[in-house]
């Protein structure tokens, strides 16, 4: 049984560009949450998707958007990249209504 998978593992982008990160949830999970983890800090909640809709959102600008597909996989899009967007982006999945979230290995984004 595969856990949460994310792609790509690493990514380097230039300021102003756009990026798309991908996540496949753990089997049987229908809810996906995205977190941003800056170096030396704890993860910060970006948003959560359930039934292909954004259900909750953290304190992130509209440059951060997402999508969930019918197979429960999800994408995180970031437009107009800033240097400060450099971070590890984590995807976590859970069954709806469950507190327990399982994290993927993350995508390391570097903006130059």
């Amino acid at each position, binding site marked *: 049984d595969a856990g949460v998978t994310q792609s790509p593992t690493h990514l380097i982008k230039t300021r102003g560009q756009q990026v798309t990160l991908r996540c496949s949830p753990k089997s049987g999970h229908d809810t996906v949450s995205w977190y941003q983890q800056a170096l030396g800090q*704890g993860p910060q909640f970006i948003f959560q998707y359930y039934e292909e809709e954004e259900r909750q959102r953290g*304190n992130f600008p509209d440059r951060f958007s997402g999508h969930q597909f019918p197979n429960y996989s999800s994408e995180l899009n970031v437009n107009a990249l800033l240097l400060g967007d450099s971070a590890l982006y984590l995807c976590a999945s859970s069954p709806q209504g469950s*507190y327990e979230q399982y994290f993927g290995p993350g995508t390391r984004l570097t903006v130059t």
Partner: protein
Amino acid sequence: GESVGLHLPTLSVQEGDNSIINCAYSNSASDYFIWYKQESGKGPQFIIDIRSNMDKRQGQRVTVLLNKTVKHLSLQIAATQPGDSAVYFCAETLHSNTGKLIFGQGTTLQVKP
């Protein structure tokens, strides 16, 4: 932001000793708490959780203690092993808000052989 701090506190222990990692949480209305372990290059891994109607919960080699009066959480690791070396985060969430985990600062645990 809700997770602050650029320099993680570090706890250094001898292999075989017990470790205690502390965390102060932010929201008195939070009613579910989780400890995560994060190894270098990996995502956070669930260790143990506790609901606010409990003050202690035990797992295999780990115990979580919750003191709601002072909004304090601790993780005790018995007989610490080199494989326990990692960054440990506490996280809180509200019953009515199961999606958003709020993570604490994190503590680096170093186990000396």
